């Protein structure tokens, strides 16, 4: 693949990634507020969170200031993000593959970030990395690829061989893991076979900022870059967006125990939702497409 083709492909696929990622994330964020559906423990509850207690344990809780701990919440999130705490505690066998898989992804994401920063700096005249930074980028990439490949291969094999995983495994789930395995393997091969690994990476990133194609991209490096770009473009449409979804499942479902306040923003939002027409067809609902939620919910109490 020529450098120009790679550059054009990069712009196209990165644009798909960026806009789809934003669109899908915003779509989740803009889903309407729902009925309360919290689930203990809620780490924000500070010292109570250790055993799963909530502010509802307080006698006349509405008279007392709520004790909240951002530190507890952050600690929980960091343990979950970086150590996959829930999997460690409840599904240890899978954790041994899932943990390196995710750490591999994090490391490669960090490396990509460094390449982009370096590329931007190079576009502004930075002469390029010294020996130390080159080695660091190479080592980090190697670590990320090895961890990711081990994890992805392990997860793939588990998914195909384990009866309990296989029952819910779809072709898409296998494809997702295979795609990532390919990303890790080609990345690892590029680290091993391309002497100026860091230089090519920075050159590619600089090219994105300057629109100057990289010349003479080694085949395995090009394959790795194309796979990364394809993965990124595909990511927003896949279950792998669960890292975004997880924010909402935790913060807006499990941990959202905010009571409604009269006159507040939440009440206005709910009143707006309650004014929508209902079309459920069961006779007891009493919907006709014009009557709204308030109408159908209060018909029994109209004097």
């Amino acid at each position, binding site marked *: 693949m020529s450098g120009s083709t790679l550059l054009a492909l990069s712009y196209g696929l990165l644009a798909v990634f960026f806009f789809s990622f934003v669109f899908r994330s915003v779509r*989740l964020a803009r889903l*309407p*507020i*729902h*009925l*309360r*559906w*919290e*689930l*203990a*423990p809620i780490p924000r509850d500070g010292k109570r969170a250790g*055993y*799963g*207690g909530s*502010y*509802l*344990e*307080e*006698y*006349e*809780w509405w008279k007392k200031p709520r004790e909240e701990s951002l530190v507890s919440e952050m600690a929980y999130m960091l343990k*979950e993000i970086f150590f996959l705490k829930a*999997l460690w*505690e*409840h*599904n240890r066998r899978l954790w041994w593959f899932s943990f390196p898989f995710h750490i591999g992804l994090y490391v490669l994401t960090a490396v990509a970030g460094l390449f982009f920063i370096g590329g931007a700096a190079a576009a502004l005249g930075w002469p390029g990395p010294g020996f130390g930074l080159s080695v660091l980028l190479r080592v980090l990439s190697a670590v990320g690829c090895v961890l990711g490949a081990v994890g992805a291969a392990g997860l793939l094999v588990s*998914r195909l061989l384990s009866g*309990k*995983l296989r*029952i*819910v495994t779809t*072709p898409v*789930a296998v494809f997702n893991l295979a795609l990532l395995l390919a990303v890790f393997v080609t990345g690892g091969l590029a680290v091993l076979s391309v002497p100026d690994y860091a230089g090519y990476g920075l050159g590619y990133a600089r090219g994105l900022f300057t629109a100057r194609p990289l010349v003479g991209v080694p085949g395995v490096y090009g394959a790795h870059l194309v796979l990364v770009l394809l993965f990124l473009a595909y990511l927003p449409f896949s*279950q792998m*967006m*669960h890292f975004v*979804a*997880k924010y*909402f*499942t*935790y913060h807006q*479902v499990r941990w959202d*125990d905010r009571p*409604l306040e*009269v006159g507040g923003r939440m*009440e206005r939002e*709910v009143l707006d*939702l*309650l004014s929508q*027409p*209902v079309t*459920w*067809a*069961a006779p*007891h609902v009493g919907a006709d497409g014009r009557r709204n939620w308030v109408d*159908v*919910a209060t*018909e*029994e*109490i109209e004097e």
Partner: protein
Amino acid sequence: MKKKLRVRDISRLGSTDLTEVDPDALLPLPPPYDTTDGLPAWKELKPEARERMVCDLDGVVALSLPKPESEEEERKYVDQFVSGLQKLFTRENNWTFLQPLTLALEYCVGCQTCSDACHIFKASGENEVYRPTYRSEVWRRLVKKYVKPGGRLLAPLTGADVDLNWTAVSRLYELAYRCNLCRRCAQVCPIGIDNGLIAHEMRKLFSQELGWAPRELHEKGTVLQLEVGSSTGMNQVLVKDNIDFIDEDIEEETGLDAHTPWDQEGADVLLIHNAGEILAWPENPGAFAIILNAAGINWTLASEDIGYDGVNYGLFYDDVQLARVALRHARTAKKLKVGKIVMGECGHQHKALMTVADRILTGDMRVRRESCMTLLEEIVFSGKIKFDPSKNDFPVTLHDPCNIVRNLGIVEPQRRILRYLCPQFREMTPHGVDNYCCGGGSGFAVMSGNNFTDWRVSVAGRMKFKQILDAFADQPGPDVRKYVCAPCSNCKGQIRDILQYYGALEKSGITYGGLAELIVNAMVDVKGPFIKWEMH
């Protein structure tokens, strides 16, 4: 069969069951419950019943769904199902749970962490049909195929291989009632996927679009409650009569004031019991009356509207019914101008009125709501009542109602009371927010059609029974009387059925009851023991 089961088998045609409960595979229980000898046999479904009702999931019939009389009728239901499925994903029809449902359906990675957390799946011997993800995956594939744009075209790629037919629809209806909605699976999910919510949404679709719901929850549940005042069928005259009888009996028995004030405008506390207590466990409302009077609380019960029955089965199957019941509870409190509603010992009442309905109690329907656990704790440690914990010197363990503990985070108040008043209190393993459901959750405790009670007790309640036995393992014989404190009406009903089924009072000396009863039993001023060591 279970190892070969595929997700798409849900729509496999035929009159045979998709699976069956294998008695030999069930979770083992400790002696003397390690054998089925002497246990009541499962109720046989008569051939004519099988001919009349849908029975092709697991040999169990919870819902008595009549078989359609023609293929045309089958097609009508399938079409209605698709219509309902689409409505579940619209803002106007399902804003109530659209975000949690979307998240649960689109982002599960199939790691199966949830499976080991499910008491039904584990107790059944890991029957694949009861795996939390089985139900959800069927649903997910149907949504991909029949709701998403281009779903049928992309089905071979997305793995959406479940065909929609009458068999799938009717099996899914039954399958929606093989989950207690306890949300233990959601609690362990690394991503926060909620399979319980998916089952809940399935139930909603059937109820709100097709008009299908268990008779015990709908006709005999919310509909009866909204018409008469209570799902027990008691109207306000009957409930007052019953409470009068209870007050008299309890006063005679204890020598204390058990008078229940009715409809006291401006009372600090409007106590709303699950009305099932009044009929099945009258000692519980009686105990509350003694405690509140002894503590000098300005309290009342409400006889108007539905104010004397905290039940809200809408929580389990229908958002519209949930809202109707919750709004009428709030309206009763507003009319009486009370300071707050206090939930009686009823888990789903707690969850329905304190949290799930919280955001629809807007404007002048806003009323303060509190758990009886916190009020009882406040009273017990206030010094207003004298206690003698030695009166409760027998082994006591605590069942954590999922709706109060895991779903509301009310964990410690009841424990602080038990640690203070019950010298031999011991925890189950696991307990608190990690507890196992009793198996009666989400309405199961009041559902008893056909052979469902057998399944509910033998499979859904099996893990809880094992926990109870394990908690008392140091004194297993019937000579030592033991008490399972279950501060929830539905849980009590389920635990009663479990203990009766296995003869646990006779074999192990285990009985059950609420928290208020233990408090009254420990009161210095109560003459004689309040707790009766009998199965009732």
